[in-house]
């Protein structure tokens, strides 16, 4: 069950999916498991929906693990899901948030890739789709969104780790999310959790031009990072994807922003300089705990600034 579940270790996909059922069973009036579709290899894609009722309330989207080797992202999302569930009714902030908004949390955004990292290749990043005319598999699901698709910072080579795929939303894993967000129509925030390098970013990635809400998102991001850093002093940088890392087209938060979701952010979690994607399991809870503070700040801001 969710109380005995060990959040301080990494888990295989089947254990995570089983844990989701426990979460729903343990919080039946708060959490439901929504299948938004299936992956390329036909694994179910689940979202945990946190909702206290109401019809089509304004909502916050959070996804983790779109790049499958970024295990700390998924592990942190598991911890944060449990934190949000157990804090509801106890922490006034979380209670107020879920009283007004729904939160959709996707813990394993790339299930095929995640399973593959556990069985065949720990360093696998992409989806597992077959690429016509190539022996190399997979599309980078964070280069496949319809936001400057095929532009700088994405590769047309199917063997590249940043292969953008044959067309925007060709990756079924991406299309499933796009369909959900569009059909819902009332998402106010879109937050994507990656690893590593300790950054909090906002659009754009496909161009280095400022977004219209640059000043506001920068300010929100800086305060979120202040909250995050208050726990262990972890140092984060804040900025647009293009200016803070590199120009990268076809990214998820560029798409969400261009589709009207103003509060679009991407986290890059720990670490810097020791383990990269192989962050030891004893770092999961500290990472998740500090990230929760930053994430909570963003969610509170979204709650308090309806648009």
């Amino acid at each position: 069950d969710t109380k005995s579940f060990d959040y301080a270790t990494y888990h295989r996909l089947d254990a995570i999916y089983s844990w989701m059922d426990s979460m729903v069973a343990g919080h039946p009036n708060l959490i439901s498991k929504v299948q938004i579709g299936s992956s390329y290899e036909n694994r179910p894609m689940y979202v945990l929906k946190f909702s206290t009722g109401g019809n089509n309330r304004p909502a916050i989207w959070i996804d983790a693990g779109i790049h499958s080797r970024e295990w700390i992202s998924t592990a942190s999302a598991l911890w944060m899901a449990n934190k949000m569930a157990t804090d509801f009714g106890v922490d006034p902030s979380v209670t107020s948030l879920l009283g007004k908004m729904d939160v959709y949390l996707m813990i394993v955004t790339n299930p095929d890739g995640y399973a593959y990292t556990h069985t065949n290749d720990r360093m696998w990043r992409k989806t597992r789709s077959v690429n016509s005319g190539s022996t190399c598999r997979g599309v980078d699901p964070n280069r496949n969104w319809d936001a400057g698709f095929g532009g700088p910072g994405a590769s047309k080579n199917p063997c590249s780790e940043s292969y953008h795929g044959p067309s925007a939303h060709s990756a079924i894993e991406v299309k499933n999310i796009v369909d959900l967000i569009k059909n819902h129509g009332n998402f106010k925030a879109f937050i994507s959790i990656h690893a590593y390098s300790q950054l909090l970013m906002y659009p754009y990635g496909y161009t280095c031009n400022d977004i219209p809400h640059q000043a506001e998102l920068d300010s929100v991001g800086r305060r979120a990072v202040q909250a995050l850093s208050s726990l262990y002093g972890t140092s984060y940088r804040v900025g647009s994807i293009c200016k803070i890392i590199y120009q990268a087209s076809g990214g998820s938060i560029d798409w969400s922003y261009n589709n009207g979701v103003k509060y679009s952010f991407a986290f890059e979690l720990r670490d810097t300089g020791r383990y990269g994607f192989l962050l030891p399991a004893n770092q999961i809870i500290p990472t998740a705990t500090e990230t929760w503070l930053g994430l909570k700040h963003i969610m509170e801001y979204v709650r308090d600034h309806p648009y």
Partner: protein
Amino acid sequence: RKVFTGDQVLRVNAKSEAQIQLLKTLENGEVFKLDFWTHPSSSDLPIDIHVPYASLYAVQKFLQDNEIPFHVMIQDLQELLDKEQEDLQRNAVKGG
């Protein structure tokens, strides 16, 4: 299961735009089969490169010849993966 015995992850701290451009040529080349964990964009951010064992000598020489500072972040990738796998199995037994 794919193994990475002897592979290293190098942390590169480029000092100039010229060095960033050199690293971009390295990134765009396919000969060394490099996996850039973080990418060359500015001298403010470190660049982490997973280098297969077979390419280690050539890549390190490239960096040294161009006076690009680097150090070894992960000495042997497979050792780290083995430890991670042991932890996973131990925790699975404990949890089970």
